Structures are given as structure tokens and as C-alpha cells.
């Protein structure tokens, strides 16, 4: 096979998954320009390894390389995003950030459901964010997610459960205070 045929092959395998790749990169880097850079770097890497690719799912294969590229990028550019996942500390402690005082900016940002949910997802640790994206948006199986993220199935299950619990807790917390404030308003003073 000539190099050019190999390149054509590679593009046919990989280009259909650009949305999935970009979406994951965008959620992990939280920035358009960085997402594009990471996708491009990941694809160049993927092309270098393409000769060794014999698997069935180009999508899972590409996403594996992409998430590794993302995490290397985060380690270099956003080390704070990669604070080790603490399996002991309660999740609600880490959620303190979401439960801060309601400022006008926060009210504005949270003006609609989408903005509110997006912000909650963006506030998750990167390892939680990626399982949410891979499961809820790409609808991959736990086995595929386990292969992409290189952690056991049990870890996928628990990360996903904790990530969802955080999102739901944050979601309900953002809705409840308003109702609570209203109640206090009508009964207090």
C-alpha cells in the first residue's frame, strides 16, 4: 500500500468521528482553540500509529488517542485540572464551589437549563467529565469507555455514578435555593 493510499484509508476511518473527537476535546479543554489544537495533534499521532490499528472500532481507537492527548495537554497546560481524584473525601465537599453565594453573574450564567447543566459538567474533574461525555453524549458502552479511559469496568461504573450524583446534586441545589428563598421571603420578617 502506498503512503497516499494509507492516508486515504486513514481519513476514511477517522474523519467520520471528528464530531465525537472535537466534542470530547472541547469538554476536556473547555476552550474552542485548544480543542482544535488537541484534535489535530491527536489525529497526527493516530496517523503515525495507524499501521498498528487492527481493531474493529475506529471511533473508540481515535477517542483513546484523543483522550490521552487531552490529558497530556492538561498536565502541561492546566495541571490544576488534574488534581488527583480523591476517593475518600465526600463528593459534596468538592461541590462547595457550586454552592457559593448567588451573585448576579451566577444568576445570569445560570439563566437557562442548558447553561446551568453545562456549567455543572464543566466544574467536574476531568476524569468525571470524560465519562459523562462518553456515556451521555456518545452513548458508548461501559466496556468501550473502560477501554478508552484505560480503567477497569468497575471504575467506569463508580466514576459515572459519582459524576451523575454530583451533577444531580448541583442541579437540585440550584433549583432549591430559589424556592427556599421564596418560602423564607413569604414567611419571614
Amino acid at each position, binding site marked *: 500500500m502506498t503512503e497516499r493510499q494509507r492516508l486515504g484509508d486513514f481519513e476514511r476511518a477517522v474523519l467520520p468521528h471528528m464530531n465525537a473527537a472535537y466534542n470530547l476535546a472541547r*469538554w476536556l479543554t473547555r476552550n474552542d482553540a485548544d480543542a482544535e489544537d488537541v484534535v*489535530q495533534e491527536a489525529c497526527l499521532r493516530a496517523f503515525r500509529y495507524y499501521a498498528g490499528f487492527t481493531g474493529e472500532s475506529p471511533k473508540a481507537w481515535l477517542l483513546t488517542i484523543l483522550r490521552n492527548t487531552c490529558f497530556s495537554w492538561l498536565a502541561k497546560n492546566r495541571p490544576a485540572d488534574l488534581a488527583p481524584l480523591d476517593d475518600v473525601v465526600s463528593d459534596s465537599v468538592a461541590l462547595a464551589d457550586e454552592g457559593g453565594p448567588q451573585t448576579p453573574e451566577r444568576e445570569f450564567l445560570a439563566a437557562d437549563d442548558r447553561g446551568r447543566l453545562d456549567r455543572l459538567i464543566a466544574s467536574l474533574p476531568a476524569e468525571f467529565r470524560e465519562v459523562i461525555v462518553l*456515556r*451521555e453524549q456518545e452513548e458508548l458502552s461501559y466496556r468501550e469507555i473502560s477501554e478508552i479511559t484505560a480503567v477497569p469496568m468497575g471504575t467506569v461504573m463508580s466514576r459515572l455514578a459519582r459524576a451523575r450524583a454530583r451533577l444531580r446534586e448541583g442541579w437540585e441545589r440550584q433549583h432549591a435555593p430559589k424556592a427556599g428563598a421564596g418560602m423564607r421571603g413569604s414567611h419571614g420578617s
Partner: protein
Amino acid sequence: MDHKQVPSLAGAWLDGELPADSRIEMEAHLAGCADCRERIDAERAFLARLKSTATYHPAPGGLAARLSQALRAEETKNVVPLKHRSRPGISWRGTALAASFVLAVLLSGGIGYMGSLPASGDLITQQIVDSHVRSLLANHLTDVTSTDQHTVKPWFNGHLDTAPPVKNFAGEGFPLIGGRLDYIDHRPVAAMVYRHGLHPINLFVWADPAKTAGQPSVTERQGYNIRHWVQGDLTYWLISDVEADQLAALEALLRKGE
């Protein structure tokens, strides 16, 4: 299973991803526990909202195109350091194609890497044979397919820094089929394709003022007839499995056609 375990397993159960034993326990518990059924329903509703509401970021328009470009540039980059050679005036696509050919040449094994030594006429002969065979095998005879010399010539002008003469000799029994870029003796070269009867003929032309391609020659190798000559600054190589005298006739036409 008690209530406390339900929340952490609810998602996996809804996803149909709970291992069989846990799933059976979960379903037995839910059958007898209205509270937990309610919790599961709330979880299901929240996950549906999450799925339908969170922003999906599709790839920006043009990303695929930029990526293709980067891939081709990368391909070139992989090769150029070996050559330490820059050829201004060659289009980017030409360089990438040339790079793909040098890789193919390097990988084809028959030749091996030539290093930066000028290839002798004999080595070039071997490259000509390999290139001819490859053009037949890979179903890649032409990049531009046209019997019209006025189409083929401008195409080369856009891809090479020398303009090879392009003539159609259909009237003389050698119709022009088209042209493509190839890579011989460390440089992108024009390859023109003629036919005689059913036999494809490759004509390679490149500028070679230093005459590194050696003396004019008529040879036969691996069953192919090969003719090489120099005219002005251009070096010509003809190769085909047609009879030797037919190839000589085409050479005469080409020499005269200037």
C-alpha cells in the same frame, strides 16, 4: 440489597450495564420498594434531561479540511529531514505527492535508501522499472487523465518547477493517456503515459543540467524495454513492455516533436 445501595447502582441499572447478579438483586428490591422506584424514576428523568440538554460541540466547519492539510504536511515533514532538500517553486501538493512516492520507494524494499549520493544511471534505471511497475500495480497510472496535451501540460506546470514538453502522438499510434507526478533520483518528476495498442508506456522527464542521470542508453530489464536520452537540459526515460523498435519509434517522435 438495601436502600443505601440503590442510588450508586441506579445509573448502571438504567444503562442495562449492571452485572447479572446485582441486576437480579436490584430488581427484587425495586419490586418491593416504592421509595426506591420513585428514586429510580427521578434519576431516569434527570439523565434524560442531561442527555438532551447538555451542549454537544460539533467539530467546526473546515476542521476536517485543515486536518487533511496537516496530515499531508506531516507526511512531507517525515521525509524531508532525510533529504535535507528544499525545492522552492513546487506546489505543496506536489511536495506531498513526491514525499509519498519517496516513502513508497524507501519502503518497497527492492531499492533501499539511496542516501544523498547522486544515483548512478543504473540505480535510476532500477527506479524507472520500479516506478513503471508500481504505476501499473497500484492502479495509479495518471493523476490527470486526458488525451489532450493542452490539458496535461498546464497540469504539470502547476505541479513542477520545470515544464516538460507534452505531445500527443495518437496519429502515429502512440496516444497520450495522461500524466502524473512521480519521484525519481530524489526529485519530483513528470511522468507522461502513452499507450501503444494495449501496452502502457511511461515517459519520465526531468531537468538534469548536471547530467547525473548518465549516458544515453537502451536497455532491457525485468522484461521491460528502457530508453534513455538527454535533450537540452532535460533527461528522458521511456519504459514499456512494447517491442524495442516500437519504443525506438516513440523516442524518434519525441525527439522530433520538440
